[in-house]
């Protein structure tokens, strides 16, 4: 079975096919995303300096082209004399890790709930969807603050909190899809063929929501990164001294009138990544829509 699917992949992945499927890709967001992932994974190796090394002697160095700046610290140093470029590079790792894990967890739970609730209907649907309503109506920032003050701040806790609040969004949108797919004659024919409920959900319903799942996930990356940055900004995210974009922006706010770049640079990084994921998500949405597939 594995060999079979491998063979299929190799047959499908011929060069003209890849070239055709890449037609019309938004290049700029794609380059930003690739950069984000590479930097996020190999941050420690790529950083020119140790992002944690404090050196009061060289604190608050400006950008390299300004007066007093040096090419050794191209983006300057922060209030403790740490290299901003290295901190930005290493800080991307936190955003990447958090967003990937949260999306994986939330998408799985959301899809599962959507398929089960949508297909089975009845009281299962009612209970699961009321749960979704409840979670979606809770003020997640306040809950996150409370949660952090009880169990402490940290990457793992951010992931837990964000996952809890991210899956209902998936569940609600995907359930609508499931309700639509359920009406298809092919589902009815599967019942006629004697397929069990589990089989119908797994083999007939789920494959048909994958497109939507992928699109929502891409669009979600941005908001997860923003949420993580927000939590780090208000101090319940990644604890210091580990660099995170949100925390860096928070540190820089105090110097906004004198050393504005300290707050602006992490902000620019966040904006670039979030914008790129949204643009890619939009492109994917159109690309995966069967109505547009022939174009």
């Amino acid at each position, binding site marked *: 079975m594995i060999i079979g699917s491998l063979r299929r992949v190799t047959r499908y992945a011929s060069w003209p096919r890849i070239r055709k499927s890449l037609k019309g890709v938004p290049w700029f967001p794609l380059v930003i995303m690739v950069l984000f992932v590479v930097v996020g994974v190999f941050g420690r190796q790529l950083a020119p300096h140790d992002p944690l090394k404090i050196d009061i002697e060289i604190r608050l160095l400006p950008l390299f082209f300004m007066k007093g700046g040096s090419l050794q610290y191209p983006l300057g140093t922060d209030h403790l004399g740490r290299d901003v470029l290295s901190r930005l590079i290493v800080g991307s790792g936190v955003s990447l890790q958090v967003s990937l894990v949260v999306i994986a967890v939330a998408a799985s739970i959301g899809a599962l709930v959507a398929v089960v609730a949508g297909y089975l209907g009845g009281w299962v649907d009612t209970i699961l969807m009321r749960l979704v309503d409840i979670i979606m109506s809770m003020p997640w920032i306040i809950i996150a603050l409370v949660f952090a003050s009880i169990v402490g701040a940290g990457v793992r806790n951010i992931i837990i909190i964000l996952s809890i609040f991210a899956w209902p969004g998936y569940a609600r949108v995907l359930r609508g899809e499931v309700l639509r797919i359920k009406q*298809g*004659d*092919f589902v*009815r*024919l*599967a*019942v*006629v*063929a*004697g*397929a069990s409920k589990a*089989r119908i959900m797994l*083999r*007939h319903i789920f*494959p*048909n929501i*994958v497109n939507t799942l992928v699109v929502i996930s891409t669009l979600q990356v941005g908001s997860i990164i923003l949420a993580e940055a927000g939590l780090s900004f208000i101090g319940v995210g990644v604890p210091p001294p580990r660099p995170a974009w949100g925390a860096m922006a928070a540190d820089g706010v105090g110097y906004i009138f004198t050393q504005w770049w300290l707050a602006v640079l992490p902000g620019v990084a966040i904006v670039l990544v979030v914008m790129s994921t949204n643009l890619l998500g939009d492109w994917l949405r159109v690309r995966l829509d*069967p109505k547009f597939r022939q174009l």
Partner: protein
Amino acid sequence: MGEILVEARDVKKYFPVNRGVIVLKHLGDIKAVDGVSFTIGKGETFGLVGESGCGKTTTARLILLLETLTGGTIFFDGKDTSELSGPELRKYRASVQAVFQDPYSSLSPRMRVGTIIAEPVVIGGAISTNGIKDRIAQVIKMVGLRRDAMELYPHEFSGGQRQRIAIARALASNPKLIILDEPVSALDVSIRAQIMNLLYDIQQKLGVSYLLIAHNLAVVKHMSKVTGVMYMGKLVEVVESQELYLHPLHPYTQALLSAALPSHPDEQREEIVLPGEVSTPFNPPPGCRLYRRCLYARPVCSEQDPPLKEVSSGHFVACHLH
């Protein structure tokens, strides 16, 4: 008439209409199918005609066990279908298959054609993997598709070819009965004849029975030996198709036949127009369902529901006139 495969006896399906969120108030029932009886012989085609909402599709869904009966019994090969379970139910699922109207909705867009066709056999679980492969190759050939069709996805086929795939799937588990719910009405004119001939050939070769549901009288007449006419959940006339065309007895059948489109410009037919429109059978009043629209209505028609009775050999009508 040969051996009987399916017997529907006083079959009923009511859909309750309720109001309220927590405390439900039962307002009444939509009597989609209300006391329908008919038989389908082995290797024969039984046609059901009627306008939308007459209950013909619900009847089919009852046989397919997609809906549960409100009353009555359906016997398949002498067994009560509502009592099937376990291996017997699995056997029944393999023996009764369906082909639906819309070939775009009836094939899962994310499955390969081979997988789609194999599904009823795989679930049936009686054959080995190699046996399944052979079986698929066999049915694909039977419906006139190329062998490499197995490897492709449904969107790579046209409407007519998709309907062939749907028929191949229905045949894969070697069924005794195939329910054809408007099998050609979504297809192009030149493809319709191909599919109708294919279904005819398959029946000649395999001796499978068909329950054909269609609104096009010419299609039903052409394909089925016996035809039943439904109106608002009731079977109003059952007779051999040729006889139905030549001597319709029920006023509704007469109106339906007179409304059929002519096959050439000089075909003059007197059009019988029933006043009013078909309504949903929600809490229908007692008496004949056609009472308010019938041209020959008599007082008795509003009081007593006419039973389906045999007026001449093999000709059943539910009307107080006969």
